[in-house]
């Protein structure tokens, strides 16, 4: 799982962009959340302290009479009001000398002992102290000094406004509520953070997709262009660098498409021309064959007949030249045989007379005789499955293959298999010769490799067939030709 993630990260730009954006969103959101929680927690704490300070000041005011008179009954009335306030653990009231006047509720032992250890601290202004589980708020209880003389009571302007401290109070406020509030705040913040993260991930997904999708389309386009040679235009959705790249790609694709089209046209023309060339070649061969058979063959037959008459006359007269005539007649027979073979090679009349199967058999028989190589033939009847032109092409391909085996393969055994498979015929020729490097042979230029292989390819193309050569040096050669049938089997 981890491996696939790393693999995806390494291979997919989308994953990289998405992870980067998510990292950014995560960092920003966690920073903001932490900052928010910290500020809010501080604000809550400050609010608690502020409330505590207000409470202690109010309590200092309300307890003035009780502290002033050091009357527990009066004091307890004021204290009771404070202890009802939420979060107040307890209250302690001291007189100006630090003597405890009253203590109600829970006044934690720790800070009570703290106060005791440090002695009574007469703070002049309200204060707050923070402990682990609670806050202590304190305030002096202050009164105005009042009047100095009885006379002054009658004259308002003679009052003494100087203040004096008559006691001190402590309020112990529980931090539990604050902790609960901060916890609730943290939970809320985490919830908001998760929602933000989810929304952020969706936004990041679409952003990453927005950035990488055009690149993927471009990649697919390049791939398709590489495989198929042409591709549909890629939509240009933006005007940024990617948009401009897509635009350039479309221009390049269009240009390549045009060139490809021109190339296909050229190829078609070339095929047509090569087809015409083969046809012209066949026609010329046929004409030559007929000329050889009809003119040269007839002439030689006539010449032979005349030499036979001369030899008959000379032998009756006992002329010694009759022996020479017999030798000449034998030479003329040899020439006639050569002319016939040449004529058949140029235009295999057997193909038209007996069909493709018989022509292949005859070709193999002649190959065996000529090169003294053993041939095993497994041949289905494939007559009437192809047009005469196709049959000629197949025959010519066999002729070229066997010619090559005879000349170059140094084979001792050749296996020929011709089988009908559904709507096509498969021709396979295997030899145990010295073989050759197919790629190397294909990469040779036309002068070095000759036209044999190129002609085989071209004829296979004309047959709309599949032609394949498998060969390795010292491992023989296997040639396979699969040709679709153009005529229904008779």
């Amino acid at each position, binding site marked *: 799982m981890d491996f696939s993630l790393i693999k995806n990260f390494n291979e997919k730009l989308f994953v990289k962009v998405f992870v980067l954006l998510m990292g950014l969103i995560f960092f920003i959101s966690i920073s903001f959340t932490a900052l928010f929680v910290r500020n809010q927690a501080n604000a809550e704490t400050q609010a608690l302290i502020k409330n505590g300070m207000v409470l202690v000041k109010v309590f200092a005011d309300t307890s*003035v*009479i009780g502290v*002033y*008179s*050091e*009357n527990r009954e*009066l004091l307890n009335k004021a204290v009771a009001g404070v202890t009802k306030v939420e979060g107040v653990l307890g209250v302690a009231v001291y007189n100006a000398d630090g003597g405890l006047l009253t203590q109600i509720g829970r006044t934690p032992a720790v800070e009570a002992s703290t106060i005791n250890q440090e002695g009574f601290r007469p703070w002049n202004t309200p204060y707050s102290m923070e402990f682990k589980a609670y806050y202590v708020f304190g305030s002096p209880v202050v*009164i*105005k000094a*009042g*009047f*100095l*003389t*009885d*006379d*002054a*009571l*009658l*004259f*308002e*302007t*003679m009052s003494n406004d100087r203040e004096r401290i008559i006691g001190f109070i402590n309020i112990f406020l529980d931090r539990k509520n604050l902790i609960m509030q901060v916890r609730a705040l943290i939970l809320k913040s985490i919830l908001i953070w998760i929602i933000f993260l989810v929304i952020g991930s969706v936004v990041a997904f679409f952003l990453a997709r927005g950035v990488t999708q055009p690149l993927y389309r471009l990649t697919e386009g390049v791939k398709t262009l590489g495989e198929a040679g042409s591709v549909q235009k890629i939509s240009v959705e933006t005007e940024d660098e990617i948009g401009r790249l897509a635009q350039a790609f479309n221009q390049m694709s269009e240009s390549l498409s045009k060139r490809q089209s021109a190339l296909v046209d050229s190829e078609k023309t070339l095929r047509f021309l090569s087809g015409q060339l083969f046809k012209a070649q066949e026609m010329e061969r046929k004409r030559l064959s007929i000329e050889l058979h009809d003119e040269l063959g007839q002439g030689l037959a006539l010449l032979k007949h005349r030499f036979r008459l001369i030899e008959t006359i000379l032998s009756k007269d006992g002329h010694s030249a009759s022996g020479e005539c017999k030798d000449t007649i034998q030479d003329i027979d040899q020439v006639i045989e050569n002319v016939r073979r040449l004529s058949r090679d140029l235009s295999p009349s057997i193909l038209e007379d007996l069909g493709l199967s018989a022509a292949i058999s005859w070709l193999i028989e002649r190959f065996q005789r000529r090169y003294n190589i053993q041939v095993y033939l497994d041949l289905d009847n494939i007559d009437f499955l192809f047009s005469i032109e196709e049959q000629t092409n197949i025959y010519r391909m066999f002729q070229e293959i066997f010619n090559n085996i005879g000349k170059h393969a140094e084979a001792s055994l050749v296996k020929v298999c011709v089988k009908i498979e559904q709507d096509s015929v498969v021709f396979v020729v295997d030899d145990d010769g010295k073989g050759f490097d197919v790629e190397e042979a294909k990469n040779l230029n036309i002068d070095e490799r000759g036209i044999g292989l190129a002609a085989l390819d071209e004829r296979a193309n004309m047959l709309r067939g599949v032609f394949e050569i498998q060969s390795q040096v010292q491992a023989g050669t296997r040639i396979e030709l699969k040709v679709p049938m153009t005529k229904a089997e008779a």
Partner: protein
Amino acid sequence: MRRFFSHIIFLFILSSFGAVAHGDTVVAVQNIRIRPFQEAMRGFKSASRSEVKDLVISGMTDAKIARKIAQLNPDLLLAVGTTSLSKIKTIKNIPIVYMMILNPESILTPEDPVSGVSIHVPYEMQINIFLKILPEMKTVGLVYHPDRSGYFVKKAVNAAKKAGVDILTEVIYHPKEGPAKFQHLEPRVDAFWILPDISVITPETVNFLLLTSFKHRKPILSFSEKYVKMGALAAVTMDPFDIGMQAGELAEQILKAGGNKGSQRMDARKAVIFINDKIAEKFGIDIDQGIRKRARP
């Protein structure tokens, strides 16, 4: 020691100038200038034909006060307020008249040849007014410090008894005892009466008393307009202008008699009434129309 010498010099200067003093010049000695004193001075000047010169002695040493008085060479010294009287009471060769003092007996001995008008409104007068405001009142609660107000309380109790009102008293020795004492009195009285006693009249005690008054609908009878404004039902107090007039008249008599009129010490002859109508309304007290008309707004 230093104070002793300054007194000697002070008396020497006074006696040397006193020999040439004559008739109708009055030097009014004041420690501070406050509105009630100014009011009293106006009253004094309206009743006296003498020339009145002001001398504010705030911050002055005794010797300097003596020098100033010698320079002014008055026929009579008018001490306005307790502090002023304390500073000049030792002058023997110039007749002294005081005013705007609550308790001159706390400064003077009966033998001192000093005359004047206190700001004390006789209790008989006060009780009669209070009874007109609260005719049903039978018992009144009063808290006091015996050393400070014992003498007045005794007079007040007697005056009230004559008028058929019982005064229930509580004694305190420290101001902090005030609230508890008032709290203790509350169930037994129809009203509270507060006297000018700084042991009792502290902001805290007054606040507590006001709260108790509101809570239990027990009206407070006071000595100053200030407390009426704060929530007391009524106050009976002196009139500074009339006090001044009273003192002016007294000064004229003394000057006519050549300064030998002995010591004539009197209380305020006129009372000013203040009533808090809102409190009266809240407490359901129907105030006598005659009193209401006399009361200052």
